């Protein structure tokens, strides 16, 4: 672009030599030629972009203008669908290939309008929800517009509601998709399967090997590990804003809000209401409302009118009873209201049951036990109910609240199957954010005392205090469990002393040179560290006895998940300054140890400095500025971690017989604590 501007500036420089009328003539001629060339150039160049994204020019077009595809009556129909399909038999993982991000690529077919030979449409072109769903996929990281790189294909043929389509013709439309190949790697989204009279629990459209993300599976039709069970989206939930209501007892213990319930079940519910009075509320549709009132948003009990879904927030438990279909949109409304769903629908596969732990958010009651439902619910402790209420609301927020949430959860589940080593964990799927933030996952959760024979690696960080360093090396080498000594030479301007000058010790000694003088080099995971236990020790810590270091190692063995060190430090909340400060005198509490001398596990993330066990040596004398700097540091870290991860303790570890009235020579660690 810059170059062209320059040229045009030079152009007029030629012109002043011409006569004025010629100049006008040439300028206009030049402009015309320029415009013409731009126009032709445009024409030449647009078609290239149409090839790469076929929908470019149809952006902002109407759904009514999409191309029409006429299906011949004898065009092929896919097989019905194979109940024995599993990922390893019916899914072609080769198409997903190697993917460094462990993310599948999803392609969406462009929208077409399908008609039969007589020109009668096969279905409504697309519903609002399916359009939203495809938009969500298209906006996500999964999307690719390159059909040859895709691993999963989403037809734009809308099968969300089986009642709005012609089954055979829809199947024919599927079969003529360019990459159909018996439906391999295709996924169909359906929320309302089956139709009268027998209401199948899975979509009736023949689909061969295609995956079905279905909203009403029973255990008989659900192909475990292949299909995905999804919720029946409730458009009402998106329309109505129900602010989160804290957990706790609510006005009604049990509520039924569904309008179409089989008469037998309604009798059962009404019997419950008769038996338990006020605490049970069974609602029905309003029969005597004037025409203007929308029946979807109201429910009635006798002559009392209730707003729906607001009334759900008044109940602790809400019945989600099967209709002719197993999947019910009311489940979404109930979760939205933070009401614990009581699912009474035998063999129903709950939404996303492959990853969601429904035990934490719902109660499943067999249809046979409907009359006992009240006593079953009453046996649940209040604390668990509150937990479930919170969990129900969280499920709605994360996986039910929008078509987008449903679409992305479905793709994530399929993605997790294809890249199992990168799959989301149970906790990531199920724990609400408050729990995720509050909890600490101990990286060494297995209670295990490592064998003493393993020993530890000592790391000495040094700059140029060679004399002091050699003393530390000699002292540390006397510790029986030392297995290797690593010196981190942090001075780039000076070479470490010659090999012959180093003290001769019984364990291997390695010197590592660093690229930059940083104190944190001490915590670098050097390849030379072969033991789990690491002792970080400064080159001036010479007052620790061999017994003290050996005992420190013993303490680490019993607490391998903790940082075990010597001089104790305490962090305190300074009320005047309103921040954390750092205290280092003889105090009764400890929350940190200095890493001037400390044992830790080589893999443990260093942020879990939890409870140090300390023996009674205070090594460093620190002046006032030192303390101020460290206090600043604590505040910085606390804000980075989002919380104060340090925990205060009032104990330290000593040998069993420490300073007991007992013969010294019989003690394992006699030489401890003698300053």
């Amino acid at each position, binding site marked *: 672009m810059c170059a062209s501007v320059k040229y045009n500036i030079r152009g007029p420089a030629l012109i002043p030599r011409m006569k004025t009328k010629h100049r006008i003539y040439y300028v206009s001629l030049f402009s015309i030629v320029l415009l013409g060339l731009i126009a032709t150039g445009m024409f030449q160049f647009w078609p290239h972009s149409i090839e790469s994204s076929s929908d470019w020019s149809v952006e*902002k077009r109407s759904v009514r203008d999409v191309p029409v595809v006429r299906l011949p009556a004898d065009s092929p129909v896919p097989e019905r669908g194979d109940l024995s399909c599993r990922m390893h038999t019916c899914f072609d993982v080769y198409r997903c290939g190697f993917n460094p991000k462990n993310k599948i690529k999803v392609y969406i077919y462009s929208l077409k309008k399908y008609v039969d030979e007589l020109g009668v449409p096969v279905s409504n072109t697309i519903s609002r929800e399916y*359009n939203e769903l495809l938009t969500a996929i298209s906006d996500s990281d999964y999307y690719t517009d390159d059909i040859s790189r895709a691993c999963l294909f989403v037809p734009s043929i809308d099968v969300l509601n089986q009642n709005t389509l012609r089954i055979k013709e829809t199947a024919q439309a599927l079969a003529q998709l360019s990459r159909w190949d018996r439906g391999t790697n295709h996924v169909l989204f359906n929320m309302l399967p089956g139709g009268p009279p027998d209401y199948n629990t899975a979509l009736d459209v023949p689909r061969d090997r295609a995956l079905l993300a279905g909203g009403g599976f029973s255990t008989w039709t659900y192909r475990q590990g292949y299909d995905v069970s999804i919720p029946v989206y409730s458009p009402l939930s998106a329309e109505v804003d129900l602010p989160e209501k804290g957990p706790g007892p609510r006005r009604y213990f049990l509520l039924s809000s569904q309008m*179409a319930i089989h008469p037998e079940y309604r009798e059962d519910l009404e019997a419950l209401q008769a038996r338990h009075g006020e605490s049970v509320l069974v609602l029905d549709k309003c029969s005597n409302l004037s025409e203007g009132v929308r029946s979807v948003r109201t429910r009635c009990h006798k002559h009392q009118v209730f707003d729906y879904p607001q009334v759900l927030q008044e109940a602790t438990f809400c019945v989600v009873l099967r209709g*002719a279909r197993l999947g019910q949109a009311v489940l979404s409304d109930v979760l939205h209201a933070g009401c614990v769903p009581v699912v009474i629908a035998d063999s129903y596969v709950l939404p996303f049951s492959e990853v969601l732990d429904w035990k934490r958010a719902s109660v499943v009651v067999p249809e046979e036990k409907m009359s006992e439902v009240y006593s079953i619910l009453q046996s649940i402790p209040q604390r668990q109910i509150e937990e479930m209420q919170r969990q129900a609301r969280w499920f709605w927020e994360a996986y039910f609240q929008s078509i987008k949430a449903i679409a992305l959860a479905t793709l994530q589940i399929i993605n997790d199957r294809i890249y199992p080593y990168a799959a989301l964990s149970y906790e990531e799927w199920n724990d609400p954010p408050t729990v995720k933030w509050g909890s600490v996952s101990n990286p060494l*959760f297995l209670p295990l*005392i490592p064998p003493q024979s393993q020993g530890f690696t000592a790391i000495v960080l040094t700059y140029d205090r060679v004399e002091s360093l050699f003393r530390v090396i000699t002292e540390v080498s006397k510790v029986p469990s030392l297995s290797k000594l690593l010196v981190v030479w942090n001075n780039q301007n000076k070479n470490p002393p010659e090999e012959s000058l180093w003290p001769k010790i019984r364990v291997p000694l390695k010197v590592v040179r660093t690229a930059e003088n940083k104190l944190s080099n001490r915590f670098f995971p050097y390849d030379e560290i072969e033991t789990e236990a690491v002792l970080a020790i400064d080159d001036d810590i010479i007052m620790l006895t061999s017994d003290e270091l050996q005992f420190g190692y*013993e303490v680490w063995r019993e607490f391998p998940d903790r940082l075990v060190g010597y001089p104790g430090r305490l962090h305190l909340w300074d009320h005047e300054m309103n921040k954390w400060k750092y205290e280092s005198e003889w105090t009764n509490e400890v929350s940190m140890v200095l890493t001037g001398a400390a044992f830790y596990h080589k893999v443990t993330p260093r942020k879990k400095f939890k409870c140090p066990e300390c023996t009674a040596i205070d090594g460093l004398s620190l002046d006032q500025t030192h303390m101020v700097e460290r206090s600043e540091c604590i505040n910085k870290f606390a804000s980075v971690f989002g919380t104060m991860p340090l925990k205060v303790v009032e104990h330290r570890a000593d040998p069993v017989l420490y300073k007991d009235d007992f013969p010294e020579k019989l003690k394992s660690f006699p030489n401890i604590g003698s300053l």
Partner: protein
Amino acid sequence: MQSWRRKSLWLALSASWLLVLLRVFPLLRLAVPGGPWASAPQGWPRWLDAELLQSFSPPGELPEDALQLPHAPRGGSCNWEACFDVSKCGAGGLKVFVHPVAGPLSAAHRRILASIESSRYHSASPDEACLLLFLSLEVPAGECSPLPQQWNGGRNHLVLGLHPAPCPQNFQLGQAMVAKASPTVDTFRPGFDVALPLLPEAHPLRGGAPGQLRQHSPHPGVPLLALAEERGGWRTAGTDPSVCPWDGRCEQDRGPEKTHPEGALPNATFCLIPGHHPDALHFLQALQAGCIPVLLSPRWELPFSEVIDWTKAAIVADKRLPLQVLAALQEMPPTRVLALRQQTQFLWDAYFSSVEKVVHTTLEIIQDRIFGASAHPSLLWNSPPGALLALPIFSTSPSDFPFYYLQLGSHPVGRFSALIWVGAPGQPPLKLIQAVAGSQHCAQILVLWSSEKPPPPRWPETAVPLTVMDGQRKVSDRFVPHRAISTDAILSLDAHSSLTTSEVDFAFLVWQSFPERMVGFLTWNHFWDEAQGSWGYTAERANEFSMVLTSAAFYHRYYHTLFTHTLPKALRTLADEAPTCVDILMNFLVAAVTKLPPIKVPYGKQHLEARPPLVPGGREPPPAARDCINQMAAGFGYMPLVSSRLRLDPVLFKDPVSVLRKKYRSLEKP
């Protein structure tokens, strides 16, 4: 003329330049991302009339479709709701009756029977039971054991076989559930059948071999992969990414490798197990060895998959993408490897290491189905100590247990209940009550009066409520989950215990840091007596200890539930007969759960000199008590006790600073 030429020259020049510009322009457009051109919409179009589209389920449609009687389940297939009659199980939950088996029993079957009989769900009468268990015997000739008389179409029956295909054509299963080893994915009915592990012939009845993991992270020299061999045994392979060790095609460039004999456990970080059927045995070996199983498209259901979250301990990968799997294993972050390794060991130890554990886990799964809402939460199944040791009868809320505080980010209730057991002499421990009531953390004092003498009518005035309960004159009384206990922490005391308020305060503070462990003052140590070939223990002061005396110890009240509900009756009776046994039993129990030693806190010398009887039986335990530890070890199937070499002291304990600075100064009184 000249000007015309110049003009045409100039025109041609500018025209050609423009053409060049137009050719270059599209390239520029591609090269500059994020500009107005690059953001040209690709993918799903934004329709002009998107707002006008119809909803997939117009309001009013949903309600009409439901006036149809729900149809019955299809086919002869069974699921839990359809084929198990929960109403047969009363309020007590599961009761299991085993149909008597005709014919000679193999050792393996006798082990299964013994395991069921040791379960708290066992019932001797078929009328009382709601689950009838039928042992499917493996008969070499392929004959099937005849059906029992009360078969009843298989309703509420469980056919249990520790082998994959116990009988050629699974006789008339009817509505019976099947629990068998490594069922194929195609025949397994999730939520109804139970998948068992494929156990080796000589699997021990109880206890079982511990996991092989000695350290948390893999040893640096250990190979990355071990591959399960067709004939049994393992082959380890190098870490070269070009090697595809389970694929014959690249046989020639295999890395350095070794073949290990059958029966030996693999020593590698990951264990590759092909998906064929017999490899289920390899799976268990890998688990025991702490070698992370990598299952390549397994055709069999993983054991106890209904409750165990295998994604935390194993990797189920697609065998069609070997290079990708290999790359993923090599790039796996060390923290993930660490977590997977630890989980294999936990699962092995909690559910698989003995026949008893496998059988009890099976029954626990069925009990969970019966319980419905009050079953084990997933966390209890999938983190230490496991569902067999975390009982839902105590609570269904994980935060009530002592094991999950860290995971849940919660804390135990900040106070304790003192439980004072008054045995034979029947003297009210007035001094002790005063000392304990003086603690700021004490919530209540409970006196369990187990003496023949009636309790005195009047008790001292204390700052905290004091309740006297009537005991049943048995030593194990003190570990009954009394309803009156209102706090998580219990301070268990004897009438003749002697403590100061300061000691109690400090010990409680330590307990709050380790709520799953016992925190005590007086300790014993166990040892293996080579001369007698048996276990022994000593009360002598030593550099190590493995037990704390329950006559003065803090622990979580959950251990009362565990003591009463999971310990075999024989062991509890033993404890009642020899009073020192009860200490050993409680220590065994806590150690078996935590796999860690108890914690010792300082104890004033003045008590030791004043009250020698606190150490029962003097320095050396009497022979009867000595025998006790061996009987306990036999009852548990192994020795759970772990020794510790440290004591937790207050931070400034016996430090050369002014006593006035110290918070627990009375602990240092000579």
